[in-house]
C-alpha cells in the first residue's frame, strides 16, 4: 500500500515538474543564438565577403560553429583579439594577405562612369547613388571600403582611395611632442 502511495506521489510530482519545465521551455525560449549576436557585434560590418562568407552575419554564425576567427581583414588584429577573448581561443595572425592599415573608401572617376549601375547592385550598404546611364557617385560617409564595387565595374573607373585625414580624425603624432618642461 505504502509503495503505491509513494509511486502516486512521485508520479504526480513528475507530472508537475514536467509541466513546469515544458511551460518554461516555451515561455523563456531563446530565439537566436546570443553568441552569434555577440560575434556579429564585434565584426566590422563592412559586408565585404573577404572571409569567404556572404556578409558579416554569416561569418559570425560560422565562427559560432567553430570556424577560424582570423578571416576578417577589415577588422584586423583588434577584431581578432576581441573574438579570441569572446570565444576563449588563442588569437591568431590574420589569415590573408597584409591589408593596408589605412582606411580606404571607393571613389568613382565620374568622367569615366558610363552609368551601368553594376556597382550600385554590388554595394552591400547602398553607399553608391546613381541611375541607369547617369553618373554614379559614392557616399563617402557610408562606404565601408569593402572593394566589392571595384570588380563589377566594366570600365574600371572605381578606385579605392585612402580616407582623407581631417582634424576630427587626426591622431597626435608622438614624434612632435609639444609638452615643454620649464626650467626655473
Amino acid at each position, binding site marked *: 500500500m505504502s509503495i503505491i502511495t509513494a509511486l502516486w506521489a512521485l508520479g504526480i510530482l513528475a507530472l508537475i515538474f514536467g509541466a513546469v519545465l515544458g511551460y518554461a521551455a516555451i515561455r523563456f525560449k531563446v530565439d537566436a543564438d546570443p553568441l552569434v549576436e555577440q560575434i556579429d557585434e564585434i565584426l566590422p560590418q563592412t559586408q565585404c565577403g573577404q572571409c569567404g562568407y556572404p556578409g558579416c552575419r554569416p561569418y559570425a554564425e560560422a565562427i559560432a560553429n567553430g570556424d577560424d576567427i582570423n578571416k576578417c581583414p577589415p577588422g584586423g588584429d583588434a577584431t581578432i583579439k576581441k573574438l579570441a577573448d569572446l570565444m576563449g581561443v588563442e588569437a591568431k595572425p590574420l589569415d590573408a594577405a597584409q591589408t593596408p592599415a589605412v582606411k580606404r573608401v571607393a571613389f568613382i572617376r565620374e568622367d569615366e562612369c558610363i552609368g551601368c549601375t553594376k556597382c550600385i547592385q554590388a554595394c552591400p550598404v547602398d553607399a553608391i547613388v546613381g541611375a541607369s546611364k547617369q553618373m554614379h557617385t559614392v557616399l563617402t560617409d*557610408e562606404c565601408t571600403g569593402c572593394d566589392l564595387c571595384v570588380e563589377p565595374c*566594366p570600365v574600371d573607373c572605381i578606385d579605392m582611395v585612402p580616407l582623407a585625414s581631417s582634424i576630427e580624425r587626426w591622431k597626435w603624432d608622438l614624434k612632435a611632442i609639444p609638452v615643454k618642461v620649464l626650467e*626655473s
Partner: protein
Amino acid sequence: MPTLFQQIQAGKVWDFHGGIHPPSRKERTNQKPVALLDIPDRLYIPLRQHIGVAGKLLVKVGDRVLKGQALTQADNAMAVPVHAPTSGTVLAIELHTSTHPSSLAEPTLILAPDGMDEWRPRKPLDPEQADAYTLLERIQESGISGMGGAGFPTHIKVNVKQPVDYLIINAVECEPYITADDLLMQERASDIIAGIEILVKLLSPKAVLIGIEDDKPIAAASLKAAIGQRDNYFVREVPTKYPSGGEKQLIQLLTNKEVPAGRRPLDIGIVMQNVGTAFAIAQAVLDDIPLIHRVVTVAGETLAQQQNVLALIGTPISDLLNACGFQAEPQQRIIVGGPMMGFAIADWSVPVVKTTNCILAPTEHELGAASEEMDCIRCGACADACPASLLPQQLLWYSKAKDQDKLAEYNLSDCIECGACAYVCPSEIPLVHYYRVAKAEIRETQREALKAEQAKARFDARTERLEREKQERLERNQQLAAQRVAQQQASGLASQSAAAVQQALERTQQQAAPALDKEQIIAERERKKAEALAYQQQKQQAQTAEPASIQTSEQTEDPRKAAIAAALARAKAKKQAEAQSEVAAEPAPAEATASDADAKKAAVAAAIARAKAKKQTEAQSEVSAEPAPAETAASDADAKKAAVAAAIARAKAKKQTEAQSEVSAEPAPAETAASDADAKKAAVAAAIARAKAKKLAEQPQTEAAPATDVAEPVAVPTESTPEQDAKKAAIAAVIARAKAKKQQNSEPL
C-alpha cells in the same frame, strides 16, 4: 554649519588635489598696455574656428566685404559665423594650414584689406530692452565661441533650461607667460562687467563668482571697482597654482563641488564663461562689434618687445612676431598657446583664430626642447600632481598597451591634458602626449563602432529590400504569365502552343513516374522522338510562308511574329516542364542522332565557351563579335532575319543550358565536335554571334540594318588570318544551322 552659499558669501576658497607651481614669467608682459597693430597685408580667416561645424559661405572670390560683415552664415545650432576683420576684397577661398597641432589644411578665406577699415552699419542692442532670444541670436551671429581654449559655441552654453546657481567667470589665466586676460581686465573691466550682466540676464544665477589668481592684483582691483555696488558679484582671488584655470578645478576652488565624471558643470547648476568671452558678448550686444579681434600675448626671449597685442582674427602669426621685433634662432620653435598646453607649429603663416591666446617664440635656453624619454620609475610624482586625481602612471602603461577597456576603467576621459604630470616627471616622459594619442584612438574606435552599426543597418535594409523586390517580381511574373496564356488562347496560334503545353505536361507526368527501367527509357525516348517529329512537321506546316519571305525579303513582319510566338511557346513549355531532364524537349533531338556522350561533351564545352565569350564581350568592344553578322549579312533584309533567328536560337540555347542534363541541347556543336577544341571554338563563335545578334534584335529593325552595314568594313581586315576564317566559317555554320532549325528550311545561305 553655514550653507554653501553662506560660505561663498563669506569669501571662502577651497582647494583641489595636486597642481604645480611653474615659473609664471608673466611680469614680462603684464605691465605693458595692449598694443594696436597695423592692418596686415593678408588675412587668413579659417571658416571654422570653434568646436562644431562651419557655417554656410556667404561671399565669393572677388567680393568686397566691409568690416564686421559676416562671411559665413550659421545654418545650424553648432555653427557660428566668421566675420571680416576689416574691409577689403576676398582674394581666394582655399585650403590653408590650420592653427591646429595637426597642421592639416582647412578651408580658409583669404582677405586682402583695402586699408579703409570701413564698417558695415551697426545696430547696437539695449540689453535692458532685448529679450533672451534676441540676445542669444546676437551672440551666435557675432560668432562668439569660448575664448578660453576649447572654442565651444557660447550661444549653446548660455541657452539653458535648467536653473543655474552660479555663473563663474574664469579670469584665472594660470598658464605661464599668458597675460591676455589680465590686460583685458586691467583695461576694459567695465565692458567685462557689462558682458557679465548680459550673461546674468540670460542665466539668472544666484551669484556671479569671478575667479582670479592672486598674482593679478591690478586686474582684480579694477574688476572690483567696475562691479561697484552690484549684489552677489564676488571677485574671489585664488592662490596661484597651475591648473586653477581648468573648468573643473576652478569650480572646486570656488564652490567645493566636483563635476561628476562624464557630466557637465551645468548638471550641478554651474555655468562657466571666460572673461574674454564676457568681453566679446558686451562688444557684440552693446556696440555690435562681432568677434573680429582678440588680445594675444606675444612672448619669448627672441622678441625685442614682449607684449600683448590686439590682433585681428586671421592675422598670420609671422606678422605678429615681426611686429614685436622677432629674431629667429636656428631651429626656432613657435608655440601657439601656453608652454603647458600649447602646440608647436611648423608653418608660421597660420593665422590667429578665436581661441589663440598666446604665441611663444622662446629661445632654446629659455624653453628647452623635450629631452630623452626614460623609463617610468613609478615614483608616483605624477599622481601627486594630477589635478583630476587620476593615476597617470597607470594610464601611461595602458596607453602604451592600447588597452582601451583599462583606460576607461582608470578614467582617461577625465584627464584635462594640463601637462602637470609631464612637468613633474623625473623620467621626462611626455605623459600627456600618450594620453592624447590614446584619446584619439578611443574616439576612432567609437566612431568605427558607430559606423559599423550604421553599415549593418544599411545592409539589413538592403537585404530586406532585395527580398521584397524579388517577391514583387515573382508576383508580377505570375500575373503576366496568366495574361499571356489568356492572350494565346485568344489568338490563332493558340492551337500550337496548347499542343506544346500539352506535350510538355505529358512529359513531366511521365518523367515524374518512376520509370527507371532501361528498356522503358529507350522506348520512351523513341516515342518522344516521334512526338518531336510530329511537332516539327506541325510547325513546318504552320510556317510554310517563312522560307518564301526570307528569299524575297519582303514580308519581314510575319515570320518575325511567328518566330516570337514560337519562342514564347517554347519558353512556356519549358517552364511547365519544371526543369526536369528534357531528353526530347525540343525539336532539335530529331537531328541529334549522335551518341549521348558526345552530345553531353559538346553541351559542356558550349557552356564553358559561352561563359568565356561573355567575358570577352564585356572586356572588349564589340568588334570581335561583329564579323559574324557581317558575314551573314548578304543583304539588309537577310541580316535582320539572321539576327532574329540568332536571337531565338540564343534564347533557346540559354534555356537549355539552365536546365539540367541537356543531352542533346546543342546539335550544332555536337555535329562539329570532331575534337573538343573545334567544338569550343565553334561554340565561342556562336556565343559571340548570339550576343551580337541579341543587340541587333533588341534594336528597332531600322537601326539594326545600318549597324550591320557598319560592321562589315570592320570585319574585312579580320578576315585575313586563316584562324579568323575558320572561326567565321564556324560562326556562319552555327547561324545557318540555327536559322535552318528554326525555319526548317535546308536552303544554304
